[in-house]
Protein backbone atom coordinates (compact mmCIF):
# COMPACT_ATOMS: atom_id res chain seq x y z
CA UNK A 1 0.00 0.00 0.00
CA UNK A 2 2.45 2.60 -1.12
CA UNK A 3 -0.09 5.21 -2.10
CA UNK A 4 -2.85 5.85 0.42
CA UNK A 5 -4.37 8.51 -1.78
CA UNK A 6 -4.90 6.01 -4.57
CA UNK A 7 -6.55 3.39 -2.36
CA UNK A 8 -8.73 6.06 -0.72
CA UNK A 9 -9.74 8.32 -3.65
CA UNK A 10 -8.07 7.26 -6.88
CA UNK A 11 -9.69 3.83 -6.92
CA UNK A 12 -13.16 5.37 -6.65
CA UNK A 13 -12.43 7.40 -9.78
CA UNK A 14 -11.23 4.27 -11.57
CA UNK A 15 -14.36 2.31 -10.65
CA UNK A 16 -16.49 5.17 -11.89
CA UNK A 17 -14.60 5.15 -15.17
CA UNK A 18 -13.15 8.61 -14.58
CA UNK A 19 -9.61 9.79 -15.21
CA UNK A 20 -7.18 10.49 -12.38
CA UNK A 21 -4.64 13.16 -13.42
CA UNK A 22 -2.76 12.75 -10.14
CA UNK A 23 -1.87 9.18 -11.01
CA UNK A 24 -0.02 10.21 -14.16
CA UNK A 25 2.46 12.21 -12.13
CA UNK A 26 2.72 9.91 -9.12
CA UNK A 27 4.89 6.85 -9.38
CA UNK A 28 3.53 5.29 -6.19
CA UNK A 29 -0.05 5.71 -7.34
CA UNK A 30 0.75 4.22 -10.74
CA UNK A 31 2.25 1.22 -8.94
CA UNK A 32 -0.81 0.94 -6.73
CA UNK A 33 -3.01 1.06 -9.84
CA UNK A 34 -1.00 -1.75 -11.42
CA UNK A 35 -1.43 -3.72 -8.21
CA UNK A 36 -5.21 -3.22 -8.40
CA UNK A 37 -5.12 -4.46 -11.99
CA UNK A 38 -3.28 -7.61 -10.93
CA UNK A 39 -5.95 -8.28 -8.36
CA UNK A 40 -8.73 -7.85 -10.90
CA UNK A 41 -6.96 -10.01 -13.46
CA UNK A 42 -6.64 -12.76 -10.87
CA UNK A 43 -10.28 -12.72 -9.73
CA UNK A 44 -11.61 -14.77 -12.69
CA UNK A 45 -9.19 -17.53 -11.66
CA UNK A 46 -11.40 -18.37 -8.68
CA UNK A 47 -13.09 -21.64 -9.46
CA UNK A 48 -11.54 -21.86 -12.92
CA UNK A 49 -9.96 -25.23 -12.08
CA UNK A 50 -12.95 -26.56 -10.14
CA UNK A 51 -15.52 -28.70 -11.87
CA UNK A 52 -18.92 -29.57 -10.49
CA UNK A 53 -20.99 -32.71 -10.55
CA UNK A 54 -21.05 -33.98 -14.17
CA UNK A 55 -24.59 -35.31 -13.71
CA UNK A 56 -26.05 -32.17 -12.23
CA UNK A 57 -28.54 -31.71 -15.07
CA UNK A 58 -30.01 -35.16 -14.51
CA UNK A 59 -30.37 -34.30 -10.82
CA UNK A 60 -32.23 -31.10 -11.67
CA UNK A 61 -34.67 -33.12 -13.76
CA UNK A 62 -34.93 -35.64 -10.97
CA UNK A 63 -36.05 -32.93 -8.55
CA UNK A 64 -38.44 -31.42 -11.09
CA UNK A 65 -39.99 -34.73 -12.10
CA UNK A 66 -39.90 -36.27 -8.65
CA UNK A 67 -42.60 -36.11 -6.00
CA UNK A 68 -43.37 -32.57 -4.81
CA UNK A 69 -41.54 -31.58 -1.65
CA UNK A 70 -43.37 -30.10 1.28
CA UNK A 71 -43.26 -26.28 1.59
CA UNK A 72 -40.77 -25.22 4.26
CA UNK A 73 -42.57 -22.35 5.95
CA UNK A 74 -43.23 -23.08 9.60
CA UNK A 75 -46.98 -22.69 9.43
CA UNK A 76 -47.13 -25.20 6.63
CA UNK A 77 -44.85 -27.49 8.59
CA UNK A 78 -47.20 -27.21 11.53
CA UNK A 79 -50.17 -27.94 9.30
CA UNK A 80 -48.18 -30.80 7.81
CA UNK A 81 -47.42 -32.22 11.24
CA UNK A 82 -51.11 -32.18 12.16
CA UNK A 83 -51.98 -33.80 8.85
CA UNK A 84 -49.27 -36.39 9.40
CA UNK A 85 -50.71 -37.36 12.79
CA UNK A 86 -54.11 -37.79 11.16
CA UNK A 87 -52.57 -39.74 8.31
CA UNK A 88 -50.76 -42.11 10.66
CA UNK A 89 -54.05 -42.96 12.32
CA UNK A 90 -55.54 -43.76 8.91
CA UNK A 91 -52.45 -45.49 7.71
CA UNK A 92 -52.42 -48.17 10.38
CA UNK A 93 -53.97 -51.25 8.93
CA UNK A 94 -53.38 -50.23 5.33
CA UNK A 95 -50.88 -51.87 3.06
CA UNK A 96 -47.78 -49.73 3.51
CA UNK A 97 -45.56 -51.78 1.28
CA UNK A 98 -47.38 -50.96 -1.95
CA UNK A 99 -44.91 -49.17 -4.27
CA UNK A 100 -45.77 -45.77 -5.72
CA UNK A 101 -47.14 -45.65 -9.19
CA UNK A 102 -44.43 -43.94 -11.19
CA UNK A 103 -45.43 -44.11 -14.81
CA UNK A 104 -42.47 -44.63 -17.10
CA UNK A 105 -42.02 -42.16 -19.89
CA UNK A 106 -39.46 -41.27 -22.53
CA UNK A 107 -38.81 -37.77 -23.84
CA UNK A 108 -36.33 -36.27 -26.24
CA UNK A 109 -35.22 -32.76 -25.34
CA UNK A 110 -33.88 -30.77 -28.28
CA UNK A 111 -30.67 -28.94 -27.54
CA UNK A 112 -29.66 -27.41 -30.86
CA UNK A 113 -31.39 -24.65 -32.83
CA UNK A 114 -35.17 -24.99 -32.97
CA UNK A 115 -36.27 -27.23 -35.85
CA UNK A 116 -39.43 -27.40 -37.85
CA UNK A 117 -39.71 -31.16 -37.59
CA UNK A 118 -40.07 -32.77 -34.21
CA UNK A 119 -37.69 -35.62 -35.08
CA UNK A 120 -34.73 -36.10 -32.72
CA UNK A 121 -31.29 -35.15 -33.97
CA UNK A 122 -27.75 -35.94 -32.90
CA UNK A 123 -26.89 -33.99 -29.76
CA UNK A 124 -30.42 -34.06 -28.34
CA UNK A 125 -30.95 -35.56 -24.90
CA UNK A 126 -32.95 -38.67 -24.22
CA UNK A 127 -34.72 -38.32 -20.90
CA UNK A 128 -36.22 -41.45 -19.32
CA UNK A 129 -38.28 -41.38 -16.16
CA UNK A 130 -39.06 -44.69 -14.48
CA UNK A 131 -40.05 -46.22 -11.18
CA UNK A 132 -37.61 -47.23 -8.47
CA UNK A 133 -37.86 -50.94 -9.29
CA UNK A 134 -37.56 -50.58 -13.07
CA UNK A 135 -34.55 -51.36 -15.22
CA UNK A 136 -33.81 -49.24 -18.27
CA UNK A 137 -31.97 -50.64 -21.27
CA UNK A 138 -31.15 -48.33 -24.17
CA UNK A 139 -30.10 -49.71 -27.55
CA UNK A 140 -28.85 -48.10 -30.72
CA UNK A 141 -29.29 -50.05 -33.91
CA UNK A 142 -30.02 -53.15 -31.91
CA UNK A 143 -26.96 -52.96 -29.63
CA UNK A 144 -27.07 -52.06 -25.94
CA UNK A 145 -25.56 -48.64 -25.21
CA UNK A 146 -26.76 -47.95 -21.68
CA UNK A 147 -28.11 -50.17 -18.93
CA UNK A 148 -29.17 -49.02 -15.54
CA UNK A 149 -31.74 -49.67 -12.93
CA UNK A 150 -32.63 -51.20 -9.63
CA UNK A 151 -31.27 -54.65 -10.33
CA UNK A 152 -28.06 -54.10 -12.12
CA UNK A 153 -25.62 -51.44 -13.16
CA UNK A 154 -23.43 -51.99 -16.15
CA UNK A 155 -19.99 -50.44 -16.48
CA UNK A 156 -21.51 -47.76 -18.67
CA UNK A 157 -24.10 -46.36 -16.29
CA UNK A 158 -23.28 -42.66 -16.60
CA UNK A 159 -26.45 -40.63 -16.66
CA UNK A 160 -28.47 -42.95 -14.41
CA UNK A 161 -29.65 -41.23 -11.28
CA UNK A 162 -31.52 -43.31 -8.75
CA UNK A 163 -33.64 -42.01 -5.91
CA UNK A 164 -35.63 -43.88 -3.26
CA UNK A 165 -38.84 -43.68 -5.27
CA UNK A 166 -37.90 -43.17 -8.88
CA UNK A 167 -35.10 -43.10 -11.39
CA UNK A 168 -34.06 -40.63 -14.07
CA UNK A 169 -31.84 -41.54 -16.99
CA UNK A 170 -30.26 -38.86 -19.16
CA UNK A 171 -28.52 -39.98 -22.30
CA UNK A 172 -27.08 -37.77 -25.03
CA UNK A 173 -27.91 -39.06 -28.52
CA UNK A 174 -24.40 -38.90 -29.87
CA UNK A 175 -24.89 -40.87 -33.07
CA UNK A 176 -27.67 -41.19 -35.64
CA UNK A 177 -29.64 -44.40 -35.79
CA UNK A 178 -32.64 -46.09 -34.30
CA UNK A 179 -32.76 -45.91 -30.53
CA UNK A 180 -34.95 -48.25 -28.50
CA UNK A 181 -35.68 -47.69 -24.87
CA UNK A 182 -36.84 -50.75 -22.97
CA UNK A 183 -38.18 -50.07 -19.48
CA UNK A 184 -38.52 -53.39 -17.69
CA UNK A 185 -41.08 -53.60 -14.91
CA UNK A 186 -39.99 -56.98 -13.55
CA UNK A 187 -39.48 -57.28 -9.79
CA UNK A 188 -36.35 -59.36 -10.31
CA UNK A 189 -33.07 -59.02 -12.18
CA UNK A 190 -32.81 -60.05 -15.81
CA UNK A 191 -29.49 -60.33 -17.65
CA UNK A 192 -29.02 -58.55 -20.95
CA UNK A 193 -27.35 -60.23 -23.91
CA UNK A 194 -26.62 -56.69 -25.23
CA UNK A 195 -28.60 -57.53 -28.40
CA UNK A 196 -32.09 -56.07 -28.71
CA UNK A 197 -33.74 -58.99 -30.47
CA UNK A 198 -32.37 -61.55 -28.05
CA UNK A 199 -33.30 -59.43 -25.04
CA UNK A 200 -36.86 -58.84 -26.29
CA UNK A 201 -37.27 -62.56 -26.88
CA UNK A 202 -36.01 -63.26 -23.37
CA UNK A 203 -38.41 -60.71 -21.88
CA UNK A 204 -41.35 -62.20 -23.73
CA UNK A 205 -40.46 -65.71 -22.73
CA UNK A 206 -39.98 -64.63 -19.11
CA UNK A 207 -43.45 -63.10 -19.23
CA UNK A 208 -42.41 -59.76 -17.74
CA UNK A 209 -44.07 -56.43 -18.48
CA UNK A 210 -42.00 -53.85 -20.28
CA UNK A 211 -42.35 -50.54 -22.14
CA UNK A 212 -40.78 -50.34 -25.58
CA UNK A 213 -40.17 -46.86 -27.01
CA UNK A 214 -38.56 -46.19 -30.37
CA UNK A 215 -36.84 -42.98 -31.50
CA UNK A 216 -35.14 -42.48 -34.85
CA UNK A 217 -32.26 -40.01 -34.58
CA UNK A 218 -31.00 -38.10 -37.61
Amino acid at each position, binding site marked *: *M*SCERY*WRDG*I*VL*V*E*RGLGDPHRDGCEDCA*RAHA*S*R*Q*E*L*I*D*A*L*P*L*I*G*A*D*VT*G*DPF*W*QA*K*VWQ*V*IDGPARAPRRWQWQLAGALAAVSAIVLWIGLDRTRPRDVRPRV*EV*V*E*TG*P*QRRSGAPHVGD*QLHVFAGETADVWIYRNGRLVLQCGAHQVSGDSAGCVRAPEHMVVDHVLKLPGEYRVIIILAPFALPSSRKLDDDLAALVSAGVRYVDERRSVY
Partner: protein
Amino acid sequence: MAMWKNPGEAAGQAVHEDDETAGQIVQEEDEIRAALGADDTRRALTLMMNRFGDEVFRFAYAVTRSRHLADEVRQQVFVEIYRDLASFAGRASLRAWVLGITRHRCLDATKKQRRWTNRFKNDPPDDEESDDHELEREVDRSRLAKILAACLAKLAPAARDAVVLRYHQDLSYDEASAVAGDHAGTLQQRVARALPVLRRCVDARLHAGRAR
Protein backbone atom coordinates in the same frame (compact mmCIF):
# COMPACT_ATOMS: atom_id res chain seq x y z
CA MET B 1 3.97 -5.30 -1.94
CA ALA B 2 3.81 -8.75 -3.44
CA MET B 3 4.14 -8.96 -7.17
CA TRP B 4 2.27 -11.87 -8.64
CA LYS B 5 3.57 -14.09 -11.34
CA ASN B 6 0.92 -14.14 -14.00
CA PRO B 7 -1.10 -11.00 -14.45
CA GLY B 8 -0.79 -11.25 -18.20
CA GLU B 9 -2.21 -14.73 -18.36
CA ALA B 10 -5.12 -13.83 -16.15
CA ALA B 11 -5.84 -10.69 -18.11
CA GLY B 12 -6.23 -12.86 -21.16
CA GLN B 13 -9.20 -14.54 -19.50
CA ALA B 14 -10.87 -11.32 -18.53
CA VAL B 15 -11.03 -9.73 -21.95
CA HIS B 16 -14.44 -9.30 -23.52
CA GLU B 17 -15.70 -12.09 -25.70
CA ASP B 18 -14.95 -11.74 -29.35
CA ASP B 19 -17.67 -11.13 -31.91
CA GLU B 20 -18.08 -14.79 -32.77
CA THR B 21 -18.66 -15.83 -29.17
CA ALA B 22 -20.97 -12.88 -28.58
CA GLY B 23 -22.95 -13.88 -31.68
CA GLN B 24 -23.24 -17.43 -30.41
CA ILE B 25 -24.47 -16.20 -27.04
CA VAL B 26 -27.12 -14.04 -28.71
CA GLN B 27 -28.21 -17.02 -30.81
CA GLU B 28 -28.43 -19.28 -27.75
CA GLU B 29 -30.47 -16.72 -25.87
CA ASP B 30 -32.76 -16.28 -28.88
CA GLU B 31 -33.33 -20.05 -28.89
CA ILE B 32 -34.21 -19.94 -25.21
CA ARG B 33 -36.66 -17.09 -25.77
CA ALA B 34 -38.18 -18.94 -28.73
CA ALA B 35 -38.69 -22.03 -26.58
CA LEU B 36 -40.25 -19.88 -23.87
CA GLY B 37 -42.48 -18.22 -26.47
CA ALA B 38 -43.61 -21.67 -27.60
CA ASP B 39 -44.32 -22.66 -23.98
CA ASP B 40 -41.77 -25.46 -24.32
CA THR B 41 -40.44 -25.09 -20.81
CA ARG B 42 -38.47 -28.33 -20.79
CA ARG B 43 -36.52 -27.35 -23.87
CA ALA B 44 -36.05 -23.84 -22.47
CA LEU B 45 -34.64 -25.23 -19.23
CA THR B 46 -32.31 -27.63 -21.06
CA LEU B 47 -30.96 -24.78 -23.16
CA MET B 48 -30.60 -22.57 -20.10
CA MET B 49 -28.72 -25.28 -18.22
CA ASN B 50 -26.36 -25.65 -21.17
CA ARG B 51 -25.94 -21.88 -21.50
CA PHE B 52 -25.67 -20.78 -17.88
CA GLY B 53 -24.80 -23.94 -15.92
CA ASP B 54 -21.05 -23.38 -15.72
CA GLU B 55 -21.45 -19.69 -15.04
CA VAL B 56 -23.84 -20.32 -12.17
CA PHE B 57 -21.49 -22.93 -10.71
CA ARG B 58 -18.47 -20.64 -10.85
CA PHE B 59 -20.39 -17.74 -9.32
CA ALA B 60 -21.64 -19.99 -6.53
CA TYR B 61 -18.16 -21.41 -5.97
CA ALA B 62 -16.62 -17.93 -5.77
CA VAL B 63 -19.16 -16.94 -3.13
CA THR B 64 -19.38 -20.16 -1.10
CA ARG B 65 -15.83 -21.53 -1.58
CA SER B 66 -17.34 -24.99 -1.56
CA ARG B 67 -17.75 -27.31 -4.51
CA HIS B 68 -20.49 -29.16 -2.70
CA LEU B 69 -22.44 -25.99 -1.89
CA ALA B 70 -21.90 -24.64 -5.41
CA ASP B 71 -23.38 -27.85 -6.85
CA GLU B 72 -26.29 -27.61 -4.45
CA VAL B 73 -26.88 -23.95 -5.32
CA ARG B 74 -26.74 -24.70 -9.04
CA GLN B 75 -29.34 -27.42 -8.69
CA GLN B 76 -31.63 -25.18 -6.64
CA VAL B 77 -31.21 -22.32 -9.10
CA PHE B 78 -32.34 -24.32 -12.11
CA VAL B 79 -35.21 -25.96 -10.27
CA GLU B 80 -36.34 -22.46 -9.29
CA ILE B 81 -35.86 -21.23 -12.84
CA TYR B 82 -38.07 -24.03 -14.14
CA ARG B 83 -40.73 -23.18 -11.58
CA ASP B 84 -40.63 -19.46 -12.39
CA LEU B 85 -40.09 -19.58 -16.15
CA ALA B 86 -43.55 -18.14 -16.73
CA SER B 87 -42.66 -15.08 -14.66
CA PHE B 88 -39.62 -14.39 -16.81
CA ALA B 89 -41.63 -13.25 -19.84
CA GLY B 90 -40.67 -9.78 -20.96
CA ARG B 91 -37.61 -9.27 -18.78
CA ALA B 92 -34.66 -7.74 -20.55
CA SER B 93 -31.75 -9.93 -19.53
CA LEU B 94 -31.80 -13.68 -19.07
CA ARG B 95 -28.33 -13.60 -17.59
CA ALA B 96 -29.22 -10.95 -15.01
CA TRP B 97 -32.28 -12.97 -14.03
CA VAL B 98 -30.31 -16.20 -13.66
CA LEU B 99 -27.48 -14.57 -11.72
CA GLY B 100 -29.98 -12.74 -9.52
CA ILE B 101 -31.52 -16.05 -8.49
CA THR B 102 -28.03 -17.50 -8.01
CA ARG B 103 -27.05 -14.62 -5.75
CA HIS B 104 -30.05 -15.18 -3.50
CA ARG B 105 -29.46 -18.91 -3.26
CA CYS B 106 -25.78 -18.25 -2.45
CA LEU B 107 -26.82 -15.92 0.37
CA ASP B 108 -29.08 -18.65 1.73
CA ALA B 109 -26.31 -21.24 1.42
CA THR B 110 -23.69 -19.10 3.16
CA LYS B 111 -26.11 -18.22 5.97
CA LYS B 112 -26.88 -21.89 6.46
CA GLN B 113 -23.18 -22.71 6.46
CA ARG B 114 -22.49 -19.97 9.02
CA ARG B 115 -25.27 -21.20 11.30
CA TRP B 116 -23.87 -24.72 11.08
CA THR B 117 -20.34 -23.52 11.83
CA ASN B 118 -21.53 -21.44 14.80
CA ARG B 119 -23.65 -24.22 16.23
CA PHE B 120 -20.90 -26.79 16.20
CA LYS B 121 -18.08 -24.30 16.77
CA ASN B 122 -16.13 -25.59 13.83
CA ASP B 123 -13.61 -23.32 12.24
CA PRO B 124 -14.49 -22.51 8.66
CA PRO B 125 -12.45 -24.50 6.17
CA ASP B 126 -9.06 -22.91 5.84
CA ASP B 127 -7.22 -22.49 2.59
CA GLU B 128 -4.27 -24.42 1.35
CA GLU B 129 -1.64 -22.66 3.43
CA SER B 130 -1.36 -25.67 5.70
CA ASP B 131 0.59 -27.39 2.94
CA ASP B 132 4.12 -26.48 3.94
CA HIS B 133 5.71 -27.86 0.82
CA GLU B 134 3.65 -25.68 -1.38
CA LEU B 135 4.79 -22.55 0.41
CA GLU B 136 8.24 -23.05 -0.99
CA ARG B 137 7.00 -22.93 -4.51
CA GLU B 138 6.21 -19.99 -6.70
CA VAL B 139 2.82 -18.37 -6.52
CA ASP B 140 0.88 -20.26 -9.11
CA ARG B 141 -2.56 -19.61 -10.50
CA SER B 142 -4.29 -22.22 -8.44
CA ARG B 143 -2.81 -21.01 -5.16
CA LEU B 144 -3.53 -17.39 -5.94
CA ALA B 145 -7.12 -18.28 -6.76
CA LYS B 146 -7.48 -20.10 -3.44
CA ILE B 147 -6.01 -17.19 -1.50
CA LEU B 148 -8.29 -14.77 -3.31
CA ALA B 149 -11.31 -16.95 -2.61
CA ALA B 150 -10.38 -17.10 1.08
CA CYS B 151 -9.98 -13.32 1.20
CA LEU B 152 -13.25 -12.78 -0.65
CA ALA B 153 -15.00 -14.84 2.01
CA LYS B 154 -13.83 -12.37 4.65
CA LEU B 155 -15.59 -9.45 2.97
CA ALA B 156 -19.08 -8.41 3.97
CA PRO B 157 -21.63 -10.23 1.79
CA ALA B 158 -22.72 -7.08 -0.04
CA ALA B 159 -19.13 -6.10 -0.87
CA ARG B 160 -18.23 -9.66 -1.86
CA ASP B 161 -21.21 -9.89 -4.20
CA ALA B 162 -20.32 -6.57 -5.82
CA VAL B 163 -16.73 -7.67 -6.45
CA VAL B 164 -17.78 -11.08 -7.77
CA LEU B 165 -20.42 -9.68 -10.10
CA ARG B 166 -18.13 -6.98 -11.46
CA TYR B 167 -14.80 -8.73 -11.76
CA HIS B 168 -15.44 -12.46 -11.50
CA GLN B 169 -18.55 -12.54 -13.66
CA ASP B 170 -17.29 -9.60 -15.75
CA LEU B 171 -20.58 -7.73 -15.63
CA SER B 172 -20.73 -3.99 -16.19
CA TYR B 173 -21.90 -1.97 -13.21
CA ASP B 174 -25.28 -1.50 -14.89
CA GLU B 175 -25.65 -5.26 -15.39
CA ALA B 176 -24.46 -5.95 -11.86
CA SER B 177 -26.99 -3.40 -10.63
CA ALA B 178 -29.79 -5.35 -12.35
CA VAL B 179 -28.62 -8.55 -10.62
CA ALA B 180 -28.00 -7.14 -7.15
CA GLY B 181 -30.88 -4.69 -7.09
CA ASP B 182 -28.62 -1.83 -5.94
CA HIS B 183 -27.65 1.35 -7.75
CA ALA B 184 -24.58 1.15 -9.96
CA GLY B 185 -22.98 3.98 -7.94
CA THR B 186 -23.47 2.03 -4.72
CA LEU B 187 -21.80 -1.00 -6.26
CA GLN B 188 -18.90 1.15 -7.48
CA GLN B 189 -18.39 2.43 -3.94
CA ARG B 190 -18.53 -1.07 -2.50
CA VAL B 191 -15.98 -2.37 -4.99
CA ALA B 192 -13.72 0.64 -4.45
CA ARG B 193 -13.79 0.00 -0.69
CA ALA B 194 -13.46 -3.77 -1.03
CA LEU B 195 -10.47 -3.92 -3.39
CA PRO B 196 -7.94 -2.37 -0.96
CA VAL B 197 -9.14 -4.77 1.75
CA LEU B 198 -8.81 -7.66 -0.63
CA ARG B 199 -5.39 -6.51 -1.72
CA ARG B 200 -4.15 -6.23 1.88
CA CYS B 201 -5.53 -9.66 2.70
CA VAL B 202 -3.89 -11.30 -0.32
CA ASP B 203 -0.57 -9.60 0.35
CA ALA B 204 -0.66 -10.66 3.99
CA ARG B 205 -1.35 -14.28 3.11
CA LEU B 206 1.30 -14.36 0.43
CA HIS B 207 3.76 -12.77 2.85
CA ALA B 208 2.84 -15.20 5.63
CA GLY B 209 3.26 -18.09 3.23
CA ARG B 210 6.74 -16.99 2.25
CA ALA B 211 7.77 -16.28 5.87
CA ARG B 212 7.03 -19.84 7.01
